[in-house]
């Protein structure tokens, strides 16, 4: 391989589990020569201060995202569905927590 910058390598998205029991969360991305390499690099870049106990990497081009222009169509209708939240319902004081 010619000695050039890593940008010729494919891009990977990095997900870190902060603490045992929690979900992996997206933290960023990096270029690597293959998935195993991406895990090694992610370890070096994203867990230097013990931020994680587990790493997932996913090729960025394997991710399909929602269209930003569709944001309002996708998500605004939920704003009127306030009855999905428990606080929509009055629970008398005598009943306490429900």
């Amino acid at each position, binding site marked *: 391989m010619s000695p050039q910058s890593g940008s010729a390598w494919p891009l990977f998205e990095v997900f870190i589990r902060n603490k045992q*029991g*929690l979900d992996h969360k997206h933290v960023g991305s990096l270029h690597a020569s293959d998935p195993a390499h991406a895990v090694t690099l992610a370890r070096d870049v994203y867990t230097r201060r013990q931020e994680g106990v587990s790493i997932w990497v996913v090729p960025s081009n394997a991710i399909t995202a929602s269209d930003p222009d569709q944001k309002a169509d996708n998500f605004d209708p939920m704003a009127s569905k306030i009855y999905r939240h428990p606080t929509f319902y009055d629970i008398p004081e*005598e009943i306490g927590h*429900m």
Partner: protein
Amino acid sequence: MYTQALDVPDIAAQQAAPHAHGASPAEANFLARIARDEKIEPQDEMPEDYRKSLIRQISQHAHSEVVGMLPEGNWITRAPSLKRKEILLAKVQDEGGHGLYLYSAAETLGASRDDLVDALHSGKAKYSSIFNYPTDSWADIGTIGWLVDGAAIMNQVPLCRCSYGPYARAMIRVCKEESFHQRQGFDIVRALCEGTAAQKQMAQESVNRWWWPTLMMFGPHDSDSEHTGQASAWGIKRISNDDLRQRFVDVTVPQAAFLGLTLPDALLKWNADRGHYDFGPIDWNEFWRVVKGDGPCNAERLNDRVQAFDDGGWVREAAAAHADKRARRAVSAASVRIAA
């Protein structure tokens, strides 16, 4: 909605017990991790019985969510107002989502979705007995939310701390949504109790029908429950069936009193010595009859479920055909680019 502590004695459980004592180093290591309250994740080593037991419990739980849509779906077209209809639709939609979270958690253990669904449709898999009772009146929709979902929450909150990571995380999402379910149910029952005498009567009759089946949801007594010992050693079950049932009775009695409803149990009475309500014996014959398939609606629920699956067949076929077409177009677009 909810998993049932069915705890049906089976061979896997009976075989599992000896392992816990004469444990291999791998099993000893596993039990030590459980004792340290560590979460077990899909790629971790785990005893085969733990995996099987979880697949059974999580898939039964998923089936219960999915079948649980049927008794409530019965009232979507007949809800008494647009507001109640919207709320009920949102709730039933949540139950479908809960089924999905749970099937996905079961799939992390290597189970196949098709196998799980087949097991439900063939009648081999179990689901919560509570959904085999009919929803005869609108008040039943309130009672299901208030009592059935209330019992479900009691059972599910401890599962948020269970030892298997994907199950625990699914339960956290479920429990967040479940609070709305219970409160909307209480709100329905309360509206009826504050309404006409006939409406209040409807609420009372509904509670009379659902009270005992709800208490059965917690499963057999601890003394008759063979799975409980193994499930607590594995950190799957944190609180026993009887303790959960007692907690449920203790919080529900004052709620019924507030509504001016009675609970259909002549033996129900505060016991100052125990600091709990005493309650009458549960009809376990009825429980086992319903679990084993002979409840008021077992056949109807299963038929409806299979019918809904079959009716949705064309949607699955159309989606697959559409995906194929898009893939073919992407390939031919790529070859045009190469040719150019």
